[in-house]
């Protein structure tokens, strides 16, 4: 099938995306529906927090995706800076909005979930706050892409921003923990539940997670292909003006 790098060529990537996309989208939809339906309808309430436990089927996958999408953007940025593959840079640009939406979902569901227990809609809990900071990073990243016309310069600048941003995101994660350990030291309800999830909850949770990952992959293929079309169109337009 040739080396993985062969997909750096936009044509091969577009052809591959065209064949793979329908399958991934169907698989994603099916997995998501199964995971969420199973979690929503067929799992018992948690004896402590009642039915709010059903929110984990959205909150946990979305939170994981919010972090992993940024990590994927970091990897694609490095690939762009080192090997100069256009598709890699465009994939990072394509993934950013998906990551941002995942962060918003994680924030919204986290806040709604915590509301009954904390009594307020927003709580400066270290985990929720670091997702808020991550969201600001996503906004800055997307804004930088829009602010630059030359596609190559934009790819370089956003790649460096992503790398520097990643270091500071990790730093902020610890700073936020340090800044607010007082309030939630003993919170029995830890928002990222993998470790103490009873197995009756975990199977639908893993399916939901798989669904979110597949959805992300499908969206990135779709959006990267769109970016390739746009990039090709602007190249043709420029050539026409060049005459």
């Amino acid at each position, binding site marked *: 099938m040739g080396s993985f790098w062969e997909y750096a*060529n*936009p*044509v091969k990537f*577009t*052809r591959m995306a065209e064949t793979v996309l329908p399958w991934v989208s169907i698989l994603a939809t099916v997995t998501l529906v199964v995971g969420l339906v199973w979690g929503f309808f067929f799992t018992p309430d948690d004896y402590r927090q009642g039915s709010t436990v059903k929110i984990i089927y959205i909150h946990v996958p979305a939170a994981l995706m919010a972090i992993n999408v940024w990590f994927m953007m970091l990897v694609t940025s490095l690939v762009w800076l080192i090997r100069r593959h*256009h598709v890699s840079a465009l994939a990072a640009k394509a993934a950013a909005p998906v990551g941002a939406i995942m962060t918003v979902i994680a924030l919204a569901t986290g806040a709604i979930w915590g509301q009954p227990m904390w009594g307020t809609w927003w709580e400066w809990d270290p985990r929720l706050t670091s997702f808020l900071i991550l969201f600001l990073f996503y906004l800055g990243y997307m804004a930088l892409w829009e602010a630059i*016309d*030359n*596609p*190559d310069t934009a790819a370089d600048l956003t790649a460096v921003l992503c790398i520097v941003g990643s270091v500071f995101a990790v730093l902020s994660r610890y700073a936020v923990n340090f800044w607010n350990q007082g309030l939630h030291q003993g919170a029995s309800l830890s928002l990222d539940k993998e470790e103490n999830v009873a197995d009756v909850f975990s199977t639908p949770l893993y399916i939901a997670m798989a669904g979110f990952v597949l959805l992300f992959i499908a969206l990135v293929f779709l959006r990267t292909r769109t970016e390739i079309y746009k*990039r*090709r169109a602007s*190249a043709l337009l*420029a*050539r026409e003006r*060049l005459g």
Partner: protein
Amino acid sequence: MTLTVTDLTISRGGIPVLEGLHFTLEAGRALVLRGPNGVGKTTLLRTIAGLQPPVSGDVDAPPESMAYAAHSDGLKATLSVAENLAFWADVFGTKSIEAALDGFKLRELMDRPAGGLSAGQKRRLGLARLLVTGRPIWILDEPTVSLDVESVALFANAVRAHLAGGGSALIATHIDLGLEADVFDVGPYRAKATSNHDSFSGDFDEGFL
């Protein structure tokens, strides 16, 4: 101190503008770049000066040998003529600015803030800065813009002196400077559209650029 450019392709805004450029600039010679506006002369000069990576091909010249000067001369309005020159002398490690002051008749303007100079005087200060860099190869982009005839003559003499001293100059300009310079027209090197075949062919990546 020769500058050789071999099979150079340069791009602007991600789109190739000139390709397959070949020329050499020997010490003591001047080369004038001709070509319609917007064909990519400025991009070419910036690539040669190292401000911009070429798409392909290479530019080889001894290290630290090129001095680049564009339309804007990098002059600080609040600093005096002498302070501006002294700063660039320190940056390039040249000892004194006397030669530059005399070369461009800036002696009596020494203490005047650069902001108070006329366009012509500013240009002369910009060119004096070139002298201060002590670099043999001058890369000049439209150096005689906004200069009156008398200053253009002054500029031509300065370049002639530089050439006599073994330096060389690559100048993009439309005005005849009266220099014994070879001319290099970049028109024919304009990047041709990739041979048109269907859009999703193998060389799509080139189709990007």
